């Protein structure tokens, strides 16, 4: 028994590490945002925000930057993953802001998610509802709020330029 005592203690340490990984790492509430502008879907996973929060003192709140053409629709899918043993209830809100002023509300819905289940919310941002400056650009912040958690996506709008037709190949 004495011979194997240290081996058992090492095993206990290993089990402790695994327990911390499960309890502290896996468990919790995680959200993933999928944004589709044009034909490109972008996934903003929970690790994106985990790496940026909390921001350094004096620094701006972290945001995800993306661009879109004015006139096209931007599709959002917001997935909440409840990795807890209890039901999670929250209010999900999405709104568009410009210079700290709310421009329009996109989505608002209460969610109740069963333990170890996921919930999906979807909404669409029609960029034609947003103004654009004379130089053909505009920046808006889409704020997604889940309870006290706020995630910000900055949408850089640009006015699509007229596409000139390709020159025809020279005739030989």
């Amino acid at each position: 028994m004495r011979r194997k005592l240290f081996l058992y203690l090492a095993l206990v340490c290993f089990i402790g590490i695994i327990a911390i990984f499960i309890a502290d790492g896996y468990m919790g509430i995680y959200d993933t945002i999928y944004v589709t502008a044009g034909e490109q879907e972008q996934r903003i996973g929970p690790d994106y925000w985990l790496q940026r929060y909390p921001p350094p003192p004096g620094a701006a709140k972290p945001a995800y930057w993306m661009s879109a053409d004015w006139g096209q629709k931007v599709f959002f899918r917001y997935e909440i993953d409840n990795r807890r043993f209890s039901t999670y209830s929250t209010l999900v809100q999405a709104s568009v802001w410009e210079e700290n002023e709310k421009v329009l509300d996109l989505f608002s819905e209460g969610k109740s998610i069963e333990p170890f289940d996921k919930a999906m919310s979807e909404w669409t941002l029609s960029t034609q509802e947003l103004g654009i400056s004379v130089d053909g650009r505009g920046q808006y912040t889409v704020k997604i709020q889940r309870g006290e958690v706020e995630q910000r996506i900055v949408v850089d709008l640009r006015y699509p330029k007229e596409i000139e037709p390709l020159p025809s190949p020279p005739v030989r």
Partner: protein
Amino acid sequence: MRTYILYGFGILLCVAGVGYLAAEYVKYLSEPGKLACLILMVGMFALFGRHFKEIGW
């Protein structure tokens, strides 16, 4: 000899699996969780060392 190769292969797979899971989940740990894991890992290796010393390696 073939048995030892299989043992080695199994151990390698275990280490790779644990390493992959650790790399995947360590980013979701809180700072106290990371510290506790570090302390437990140091303790684990120290106890392994003591165990091998006890059995005469």
